């Protein structure tokens, strides 16, 4: 019976894909995927391949990270201000097993992500009693503890001190291959996260977010599902964290555990629009390239005034976050997309 259903699904898949491809979102996604596929081959210029292209790789890593935050906070309603915990822990575990135990990179990535899941459990359980702003502060406090432990000079023999671990191998010496490895993992991660948010599990998460008491009353074991949400989210945050470690070929406390990373996840997901998941990807690309552009612009002169734009990048990010939260609670990018969708529908005569 199940087998037949599966067969039917597989047989229908090309048709399903075709009809999905002609919808607005489907078409847009396919367009984005095509663009992302051809981008590595557009130029042989060294700067293009070694500086510009890696920005896309970085953006995709952060897209996974921001999507994992959106799954926990947007979909399940558990506000995390300490997502850097999972990102950092996974990066460190991955680096440790490669550098100190000589494990193959792929095994280290798996171990790193599972380590993050373990931390999801470790932090999810005590945080169960906390709600709203308390949870935000609890997770923030946990991440600050970890940051300070890893920075601690007297514990450097356990946590490697402020220098961290360096000399990790890249995913590949060829930036294009590295790009495609991350690309594939990003696509898989997004499909899985989106499917989870649409599945029965996702519905349960949303019901806990919207009305925890109600969910509890209707027989849902909210405790269990909140921990599950923490663990799934931690897994993807961890996966992104291991990629980030390998991307930099090094880990250090502020770079991997810093509050700034949690801030990034919040920033990217909010800009794209909470609970959309795909918005997280849009936000990630937006911010990574905004940062890149600001650094590229560098110093500008207006009359006598000399401004180093790259110094202003985080101030600008913070300002964008303030504006988005204050004026556009659904994010900026989603409403734009919806307007485009209306236009599309008009053009298609629907």
């Amino acid at each position, binding site marked *: 019976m199940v087998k037949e259903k599966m067969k039917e699904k597989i047989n229908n898949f090309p048709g399903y894909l075709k009809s999905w491809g002609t919808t607005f979102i489907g078409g847009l996604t396919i367009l984005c995927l095509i663009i992302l596929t051809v981008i590595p081959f557009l130029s042989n210029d060294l700067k293009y391949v070694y500086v510009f292209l890696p920005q896309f790789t970085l953006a995709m890593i952060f897209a996974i990270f921001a999507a994992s935050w959106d799954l926990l906070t947007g979909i399940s309603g558990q*506000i995390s*201000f300490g997502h850097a915990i999972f990102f950092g822990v996974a990066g460190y575990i991955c680096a440790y097993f490669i550098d100190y135990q000589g494990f193959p990179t792929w095994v280290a990535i798996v171990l790193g992500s599972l380590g993050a899941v373990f931390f999801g459990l470790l932090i999810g359980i*005590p945080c169960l*009693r*906390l709600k*709203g*702003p*308390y949870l*935000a*502060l*609890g997770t923030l*406090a*946990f991440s*600050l*503890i970890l940051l*300070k*432990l890893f920075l*601690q*000079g*007297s514990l450097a023999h356990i946590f490697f001190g402020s220098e961290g671990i360096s000399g990790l191998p890249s995913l590949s010496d060829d930036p294009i291959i590295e790009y495609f490895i991350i690309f594939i993992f990003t696509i898989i991660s997004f499909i899985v996260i989106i499917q989870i948010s649409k599945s029965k599990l996702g519905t349960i998460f949303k019901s806990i977010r919207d009305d925890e008491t109600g969910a509890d009353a209707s027989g849902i074991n909210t405790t269990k599902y909140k921990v599950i949400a923490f663990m799934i989210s931690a897994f993807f945050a961890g996966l992104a964290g291991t990629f980030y470690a390998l991307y930099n070929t090094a880990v250090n406390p502020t770079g991997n555990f810093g*509050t700034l990373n949690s*801030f990034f996840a*919040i920033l990217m997901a*909010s800009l794209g629009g909470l609970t959309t998941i795909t918005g997280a990807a849009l936000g990630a690309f937006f911010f990574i390239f905004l940062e890149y552009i600001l650094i590229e612009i560098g110093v500008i002169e207006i009359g006598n005034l000399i401004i180093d734009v790259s*110094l*202003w990048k*985080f*101030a600008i*990010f*913070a*300002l964008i*976050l*303030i504006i988005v*939260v*204050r004026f556009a*609670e659904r994010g900026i990018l989603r409403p734009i997309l919806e307007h485009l969708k209306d236009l599309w529908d008009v053009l298609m005569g629907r």
Partner: protein
Amino acid sequence: MEAEIINFLFNGTVNGAIFSLIALGYSLVYGVGHIMNLAHGAFFMLTGYMLLWFPSFLPEIPWLIATIVVIFVTIIGGLAYIILIKPLQDTSVGVVLITFGLAFFIQEYVFVLSGTTPYSVKEFKIIDGVTKIPSFSFINQFIFLIFASLIIVSVFALFISKSKLGKSIRAVSQDREAASLMGINTNRVLLYTLMISAFLASIAAVLYLPAAALNGPSMGWGYLTNSFAVVILGGMGSLVGSVVGAYIVGYVTSFTSIFIPNGPSWAHLVPIIIIVIMLLIRPQGIFGKKELR
């Protein structure tokens, strides 16, 4: 040993004096409006840097500059409420996100102007020099700070319990809807509360930082976690609890940094560990009172 004990007691008292000023405002804002203001530490930090920036604009009259800076930061607190917090005050997530954004913005703004190098603003000391006893030297500014803090806290307590505004603040914190039925403009009260809170943080910075140092734009987070530790220890919104909590955190921090090997680097962890323990064991605080008294 004697010197260490005196050092522990003195440092702990100084910590308590400064933490109580900062945490009082933080607690007040949470108690009255359920507003978790993550930019509170940034107000403290900003005051320090404005002391640094202002002398180049004004003739160097320390007390005048300090007064202007405190007024300025108080106004910023008010504007933050009107422009950013008020429209979102019914959603706890929105408030947390927007004050987080504000804190980050202030921090990065300071970073752009002054970088991460430590600075001194010692010309703003009210009393210079040290008082010596055989085994220990007390920094005079800190002695002044201890007494000033006690006086400010007492005046504040009197203000909250006796004045008309103080009574309306307590009324809003106990029952916002009933307060509005009395003809109290609750949003106005919240505005004043935020301004008072920024004012107290700013005063604390003016009293403390001239004898310490400006340790970079991110130092506000440390004071935010401190305030949070204090407030969660004493109970959110309990003013008595905040003052008691401030001195407890002050002495524990001081004890850690003096008597524990490698102490100063562990002392930073004390407030965070207190937060985590309290959140897990007794989120309502030792005094366990939601209401403001």
